[in-house]
């Protein structure tokens, strides 16, 4: 039963930190809350027997991407509570739009039939050996294409980051 409680606990953490990301005024705080959200999600991955993915998730997101965010915020000197005043209309419309989106999701879910878990016996799905085999056999071409994507992103970032080109 401990897994059930863990699920509830991690879900609560993820939702709470997610809200904090959106609602906190200081960008630095937002970044830190987002890191915590990622940790909660990584916990879910472990619960779901995707241990390797959990590790990669923490390394890539919490370790690399969020550091990049922090780095940019520091570089641009945005670590102040600089959020300008927001009109009531903006707040209301944001709440209404996202609220109705959630209602639609929940409503759709309510009608859905519950899929029983199949093939529960195989706990090896999320292991590195299994994933590696699939990745380098069935998904070899997309894997290579992804490398080209990353190369392109790298070149693009360097080009954009240069000071004004003459």
């Amino acid at each position, binding site marked *: 039963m401990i897994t059930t409680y863990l699920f509830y606990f991690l879900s609560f953490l993820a939702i709470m930190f997610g809200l904090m990301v959106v609602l906190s005024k200081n960008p630095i705080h937002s970044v830190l809350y987002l890191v915590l959200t990622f940790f909660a999600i990584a916990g879910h991955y472990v619960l779901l027997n995707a241990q390797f993915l959990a590790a990669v998730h923490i390394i890539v997101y919490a370790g690399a991407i969020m550091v990049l965010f922090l780095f940019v915020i520091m570089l641009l000197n945005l670590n102040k509570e600089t959020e300008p005043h927001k009109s009531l209309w*903006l707040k209301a*419309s*944001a709440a209404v*739009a*996202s609220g*109705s*989106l959630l209602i*639609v999701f929940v*409503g*759709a879910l309510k*009608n859905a039939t519950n899929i029983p878990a199949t093939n529960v016996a195989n706990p090896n799905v999320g292991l590195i050996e299994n994933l590696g085999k699939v990745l380098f056999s069935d998904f070899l071409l997309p894997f290579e294409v992804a490398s080209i994507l990353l190369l392109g992103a790298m070149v693009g970032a360097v080009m954009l980051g240069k000071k004004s080109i003459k």
Partner: protein
Amino acid sequence: MIKLVGLIPLLPLIGFLIIGLFGKKLSKGIVGFIGSGVVLAAFAIAVGIFIELNGQAVKSVPVEFFDWITAGKLSVHFSFLIDPLSSLFLLIITGIGFLIHLYSVSYMHDDEGFSRFFAYLNLFIFFMLLLVLGSNYLIMFVGWEGVGLCSYLLIGFWFKNTAYNNAAKKAFVMNRIGDLGFLLGIILIFVTFGSISYHEVFEQAKNYATGTPVLTTITLLLFVGAMGKSAQLPLYTWLPDAMAGPTPVSALIHAATMVTAGIYMIARSNILYTLSPFTMEVVAVIGVCTALFAATIGLVQNDIKKVLAYSTVSQLGYMFLALGVGAYTGGVFHVMTHAFFKALLFLGAGSVIHAMGGEQDIRKMGGLKKYIPITHATFLMGTLAIVGFPGFSGFFSKDEILANAYEHSIVLWFLGVLTAGMTSFYMFRLYFLTFRNTFRGTHAQEHHLHESPSQMTIPLIILAVLSVVGGLIGIPEVFGGHHYLEAFLKPVFEDSSFRLIHHLPESTELILMGVAVAVMLCGLAYARKMYITDKQVPAAEGEEESAIHKLVYNKYWVDEIYDFLITKPLNFIGDALHKVVDNELIDGIVNGCGYVVNGVSGVIRRAQTGNIGFYVFVMVISIVLILFAQLF
């Protein structure tokens, strides 16, 4: 030879292309040589075809070229039909066409538009040949429109003169009115018979009863076309104005060939007309009215070409009278003889004008006999031929028409004879005023007088000979002669033979001839008395005239009446439509569309705020709506 028929229209077309495209770079000699040469070559082939057709038993030979148009039920072949009628017209067109080309080489020599003139003439010959050669109504229509175009181009040949341009436009518009009727007639033929080829239409038409309404409608519509092209009442006013063109054009197009297209068309469709007695009556009445009407106007005209123009209208009326009373052979016969003597008279008039240095008013001529003897002699031959002096070609053809008219109705005959008398008067009036008495022009003009070069006189001589002897192919049997033309054309008019003209008793025919000749001689004598004995000269412009003379001299004010009844109201309506409907309504709608789009987009573009937050908001709301629509 018949296999070479394709070359007949092709040669003038090639001539037109060469002269039209490279005319400016070629010397006048070469242009004249090509222009006349292609027509002469076509004439040689036409003669060959005529001889071959005469020698063989089958008188109707279709020559197929290619499938032209196939659309639904309509299937038109581009093919020619060689039969006595078309081969006769081929001879007239190419033969007289060649003589007039030859004449023009000299007549137009000093004109800067020399090569353009020959290009147009060749193009005209091409279309005219197409008109008579085609084996269905559509090819005839193409030729019909083509000659109309060439007529327009040639009337307005000296396009720098506004009056000439207006004359060209008038001819074109009047012809359009007739062409509309012709086109409707062709469409109705197609609807009725399911084909527009002569052979199929005529075969089917034989099964119709006489007087079937649809046939009457078809023939009336076709006759409207003929009215326009052949200058019959009420669409004749363009032809006198068409004299604005160079004189060889008047001779070729507005006397010898194009204006006889209407007669050719009716002769070609003779079976349809024979089956519609009502149309025949209309044709005969309009023909005789036109003949009389134009002759009265011709009595008082002072322009040498205008007199000849009204005489052409009058003679065309004779031809329609012949067709209307069922004397198809007589009509075609008169087309041929008329082509000879009217081309001769026009070319002679051209020679006179040439000698007078451009002067066309007969009041300023006179006594030209001794200055230009060849022109004088040939012109006299032409005059004698047109008035129907016994023995000359016009006598035989006119006599045949009058005899047939008498048989049909004595009123028609009487009007015809009356017209003949007037013709005699105005033609001799023209002749006497031009060639007899003493010269009335200026001294400088008298000094300038000279006979035309041989290139101009040779065609005159040839035509004069033809005018004299041309009638011998149709000597009436009263004189113990043999009507060669009737025998030759018989296959064409065979289907109409159930309305064959029964020959009058010999005595009656001789009396009719005698009356006609007597009336003609009266006209001659009266003209002689007035202009030789009394030495009268028509009054100059602006002098006091009797009311009747004024009325006739001003051509019964027909042009003014048309202007008042048709042109002015049309202009008014056009003006009103332009100002109200076009400027206000149509432009209003078009501009209104622009204003509405402009105004609406001026409002709508406010939604393009450039605010990303707003865009995202709209996007999310849209996603919600789409999901909602999809999931529930």
